[in-house]
């Protein structure tokens, strides 16, 4: 596969995952605001921005509606949903021959949906419905990707992009939420803190899955355990790391060149970090530092990935 194509597929997937993550967090923030007892709108907004990785130009201006509009529609702002969808499409447009027509049509429809004048109206009429309809579009794209695209190298790069992006954004989210989460009074059953915790789970579409494992008996350490270490839930960090590792192995299998040891060890280290630990161990060592290490490791993996598959030097390739 052409290096440029692999690069585009990887980024198409990352941008879509990013859009979906932002959509869900915005939706959860909005619904938490409906309950007056919790934090103020400003604090919630700041937390939202922090868990998106503190992108610039999103300072609270006192009006949730205008802030939300900015986060959805402002295509100048790199954190906005429109920006992510635009770039997902732009990447897809450059590899039209690699993705299926169905994928392209889905993504194109999503692009036209968010750019249509009607989108502004839907936003005003019912923000929740509007966000849900965009998430639906992204889900449809993923479904169509899995069912219409050949599960070869290109598809694996799509998976790789998705898992790395998800792993990184979930780690960021937890890093922002965990200080508050862990300082909640022991076993407090006030409705508000319950809502907060459910909100965190819903940011990762994890509430129902969590209940299946632990029942609705929510506690901070269980949340951390679930979102960090569960190996069967697709939004848990461990699942994402396993997925990345698997995608990478599949990519390697289709390639004659010797695999990059550096890449294997970087991703293997992350795999081991999550596979052979417990939540109490993590808490003892400091959850914040642990989460931070995960994020750093994700960035390292991304860099090596680039050096090996995309931006290698011609000389090294000719002598190989």
């Amino acid at each position, binding site marked *: *596969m*052409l290096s*440029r194509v692999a690069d585009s597929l990887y980024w198409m997937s990352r941008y879509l995952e990013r859009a979906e993550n932002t959509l869900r967090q915005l939706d959860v923030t909005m619904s938490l605001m409906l309950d007056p007892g919790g934090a103020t709108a400003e604090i919630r907004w700041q937390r939202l921005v922090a868990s998106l990785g503190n992108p610039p130009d999103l300072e609270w201006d006192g009006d949730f509606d205008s802030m939300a509009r900015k986060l959805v529609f402002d295509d100048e702002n790199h954190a906005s949903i429109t920006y992510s969808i635009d770039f997902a499409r732009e990447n897809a447009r450059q*590899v039209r*021959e690699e993705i299926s027509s169905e994928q392209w049509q889905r993504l194109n429809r999503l692009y036209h949906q968010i750019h249509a004048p009607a989108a502004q109206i839907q936003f005003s009429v019912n923000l929740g419905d509007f966000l849900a309809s965009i998430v639906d579009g992204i889900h449809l794209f993923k479904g169509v990707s899995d069912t219409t695209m050949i599960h070869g190298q290109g598809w694996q790069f799509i998976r790789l992009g998705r898992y790395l992006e998800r792993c990184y954004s979930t780690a960021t989210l937890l890093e922002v939420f965990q200080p508050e989460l862990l300082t909640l009074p022991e076993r407090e059953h006030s409705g508000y803190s319950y809502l907060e915790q459910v909100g965190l789970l819903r940011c990762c579409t994890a509430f129902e899955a969590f209940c299946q494992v632990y029942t609705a008996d929510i506690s901070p350490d269980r949340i951390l355990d679930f979102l960090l270490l569960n190996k069967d839930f697709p939004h848990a960090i461990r699942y994402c790391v396993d997925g990345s590792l698997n995608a990478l192995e599949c*990519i390697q299998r289709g390639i004659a*060149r010797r695999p990059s040891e550096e890449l294997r060890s970087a991703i293997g280290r992350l795999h081991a970090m999550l596979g052979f630990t417990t939540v109490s161990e993590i808490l003892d060592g400091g959850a914040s530092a642990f989460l931070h290490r995960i994020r750093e490791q994700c960035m390292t993996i991304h860099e090596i990935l680039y050096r090996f598959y*995309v931006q290698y030097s011609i000389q090294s*390739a000719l002598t190989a």
Partner: protein
Amino acid sequence: MSSSPSFQLDDLYGDYPLDSAFDEMREPGGDVRAPYQALAETLARLPQEELQRRKQSADLSFLNQGITFTVYGHDEGTEKIFPYDLLPRLITASEWSHIERGLTQRVTALNHFLRDIYSDAKILNDLIIPRELVYSCKHYRRQMRGLQVPRNVYITVIGSDLLRLSNGEFVVLEDNLRVPSGVSYMLANRRVMKRTFPHLFHSYGVQPIEQYPQLLLSTLRSLAPEGRPEPNIVLLTPGVFNSAYFEHTYLARQMGIDLVEGRDLVTHDNVVYMRTTDGLKRVDVIYRRVDDDFSDPLIFRADSILGCAGLFNAYRAGNVTVTNAFGTGLADDKALYAYVPRIIRYYLNEDPILPNVETYLLTDEKERKHVLANLDKLVVKAVGESGGYGMLIGPHATPKMRDEFAKQIEANPRNYIAQPTLSFSRAPCLIGNRLEPRHVDLRPYILFGDKVNIVPGGLTRVALEKGSLVVNSSQGGGSKDTWVLQD
């Protein structure tokens, strides 16, 4: 009088002028021509709303498929949907076989011509074509002299533009031998039409065109360098900002080959490689959709970053096939066009099956005088341009524009030719909720490898603006599906 029903067509036809121009659907008296009877009946039977509904669903299908093109010189929204007319243009089997024979003859002769010009240049020595006309052409590439091209095939993909004149005869307006585009619209139109009028399509018995990508692929494969039994074939695109980018991706996908940009390619020891996730991979055949000028900065324009440095030398060494060959634009120069009938007679010893349009060469003093005196009746074209750029349509131009062109002609007569303003055929189009006739041309796509292959039909381009004679998509033209009927 034929028994053609006039139906309740009055509503649909409304003001449908019939004059000296050939109407594809109706005879001069107003009767519907035999092949169009079934279409007319279907249209008469369909309620207005249903017709509009089908139009909308076709439009939506184009938008969602992202079938768009890029307009140069416009800042706002670079992507436009290719305008499209709902009604098919019909061509009978006998009309088509005439066209097919004519085009086969024409491209065979043009290929002989290119080979001759870039080797012995017999045709110049025999004084059939003036030497200076060839050597002053800006698409002539001296680098191609004496270069052996694979299987002696210079032109692999050709798009020739045909018009139908008042007497019903098809003539060739121009040939496109460099990087003709539009074939993806032909294929997309057909797909949408099959969904829009399934019963009508079935009842007409239309000859299929869907095999085009497969034919193109096998043509490319037949040109692979010797000793490369499993050639790696790629399509070279200038990239996402090119007006025909949609088409490049479409064809690459339909053929299952890689779509590469210049930045994906590297040459080493006169071999072309592409950068893949598995390291460098050798490239054997390049279906080139980048103009000569931009293909190799070492040989052609040094400021181009669209091509690949070293490509031409790899080509010269025979390590990679690039098609169409470089320098083929020579044979679609509009001044050389006037000589194509002579070219056909010279190499094939046959009379041209498809005639040319009468053409005035402005390098000839007598003809130039005549043209300058009659600018208000003629069409003037710059010889090296395509896509409807650099053109003056005398009867529609202002005196000021004509004066400007006259000055340019005086300054550089070699750069222009003139032709009479042709009264070419019109076909009915759905404009609003009425049928109105619009001027159409026909661009069939010819593939030339180990043999000549033309899929039946081509792209019918429509001048969608009332009275307009310009069919180019960059100038407000649209297209129609072209149905070549079985016997």
